[in-house]
């Protein structure tokens, strides 16, 4: 290890500071806007000249935001549970079992992971209208599960390869069926990988905009990101900058919590399989 000279120390401190500042300034700007009174919003300074909680109390008492927030949470959680469940089964099969067609499955998952979502919006829109799924929770949950699956299958098959499989053999010797071996022995060992996958799949659902605005028409199923552009200002001439900023801050809070508590897991999940040596 090289000697840490004062210059090096200052250099790295500066580099760290620059990274943190660049990452946080746009977020802090939203926080600032959300705390500004309508008059203060017209002042471009970063520190609000007049403070108010009004934007928050406004959106948090309005069904126009609360219902979409509930939709976001409900649809995100249900999609995540289903996607992680199905992906675990498939990833286990890929990591452990011998059967033909594995390459096709991997190729298919890769194709869907790279899919331009807009290419599916037109046909799915038509199909969902025909099936009565348009503007319902399942109308979003089903595509979210489908697009969460490739992500889940990749991360989980990378994690599953790291598991000590002798334990599974031991369980089989003790008379467990392959299915029992999966549920009793492997699933608990795989839990950390599944948590990581769940976080990343949930973030993807939470983040989605294009499907949410395409397959919903009312707050019955519209999610929070899609609902923000329907906010209205105090009058028709007012742009609802304050309420939108407050809503943006509210939907960012879960992300900050995830990042603070699961930083290591998120990094491990994002890079899993990318560069295993």
């Amino acid at each position, binding site marked *: 290890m090289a000697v*840490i000279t004062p210059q090096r120390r200052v250099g790295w401190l500066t580099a760290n500071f620059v990274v943190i500042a660049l*990452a946080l300034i746009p977020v802090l700007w939203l926080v600032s806007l959300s705390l500004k009174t309508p008059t203060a919003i017209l002042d471009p300074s970063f520190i609000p000249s007049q403070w108010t909680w009004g934007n928050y109390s406004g959106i948090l008492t309005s069904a126009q935001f609360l219902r979409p927030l509930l939709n976001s949470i409900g649809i995100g959680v249900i999609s995540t549970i289903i996607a992680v469940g*199905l992906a675990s089964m498939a990833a286990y099969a890929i990591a452990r079992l011998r059967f033909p067609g594995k390459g096709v499955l991997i190729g*298919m998952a890769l194709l869907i992971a790279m899919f*331009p979502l807009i*290419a599916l919006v037109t046909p799915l829109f038509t199909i969902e209208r025909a099936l009565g799924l348009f503007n319902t929770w399942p109308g979003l949950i089903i595509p979210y599960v489908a697009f969460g699956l490739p992500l889940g299958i990749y991360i989980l098959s990378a994690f599953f390869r790291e598991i000590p499989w002798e334990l599974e053999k031991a369980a089989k010797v003790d008379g467990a069926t392959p299915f029992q071996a999966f549920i009793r022995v492997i699933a608990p060992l795989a839990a950390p990988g599944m948590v990581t996958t769940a976080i990343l799949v949930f973030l993807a659902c939470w983040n989605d*905009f*294009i499907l949410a605005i395409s397959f919903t028409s009312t707050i019955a199923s519209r999610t929070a*990101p899609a609902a923000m552009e329907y906010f209205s200002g105090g009058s028709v001439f007012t742009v609802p*900058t304050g309420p939108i900023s407050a809503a943006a801050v509210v939907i960012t809070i879960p992300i900050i919590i995830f990042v603070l508590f699961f930083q290591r897991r998120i990094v491990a999940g994002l890079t899993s399989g990318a560069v295993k040596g």
Partner: protein
Amino acid sequence: MSTTTPAVTTETTPAHAAKKAKPQLSEGARAERRLGFILIAPAVIVMIAVAGYPIVYAVYLSLQRYNLEFPQNKAFIGFANYGAVLSSPYWWQALWVTVIITVFSVSITLVLGMLLAFVLHRTLFGRGTVRTASLIPYGIVTVAAAYSWQYAWTPSQGYLSALFNNSAPLTSHVQAIIVIIIAEIWKTTPFMGLLLLAGLSLVPEDLQKAAKVDGATGWQRFTKITLPLMKPAILVALLFRTLDSFRIFDNIFILTAGNNGTGSVSILGYDNLFNALNLGIGSTISILIFICVAIIAVIYILGFGTAAPGSDIGKR
């Protein structure tokens, strides 16, 4: 959107997988096969139902004249929709904007991501804090961040507009595209940085030291040792970022709604469906975007060679 990182390296195959499948399957092997199919079935069914079938349906729709406003005029018209889209200046304009945004945002993100990876890898203190902070742009809802950029560039309200002489970049073509590119770069640099960091941590420290002893400069060590060893990680990161960037939608939708000629191909497809209600043309645009993405993927995968994503998993 879904960003995943498939394996690129070829691992040594575990002993059990190396065994050649016997011509006649034993009872156990057949049970294993059956279990394998049962376990993948639900995932396969969902993926085919939501992605496979609709893309086939989109091909069918793209060959029809089908406008929701005039459903009785629905008719098979062959490739006429393709002719209409490919001879329309709107398509080429949107494709050009998309390509410009993709090329600039991905290449700048690669450079900044490399710098970020170096900071995360080498910094002497506060590594966890820097990592946590840089994950926030990755995780934040794109729409929320897009509003932040939009308000920052709103004249007489935004700090960035105030910094640049109260300018209104979102109302002019080139400047709006630059703002969109900045928003993309801010959002995606952490993902690039983390992927490159994972590649960087595989470069052996000894090799660096040996080169240093031999008198190699920092730049020489970077280009002769670090870059070649990181090539697989860089290619994976570039592939995913390029395909992700090509389908850019959220940032443009919020920042400019595609005004002033800033619409991407995804915005064009969306407008055709929801404003023109033209399912035939909308599906044609969908198929053309799909073909573009396939071309990008093929170019990259040819570049990957044997290290193509999934190639090692596929072998198992």
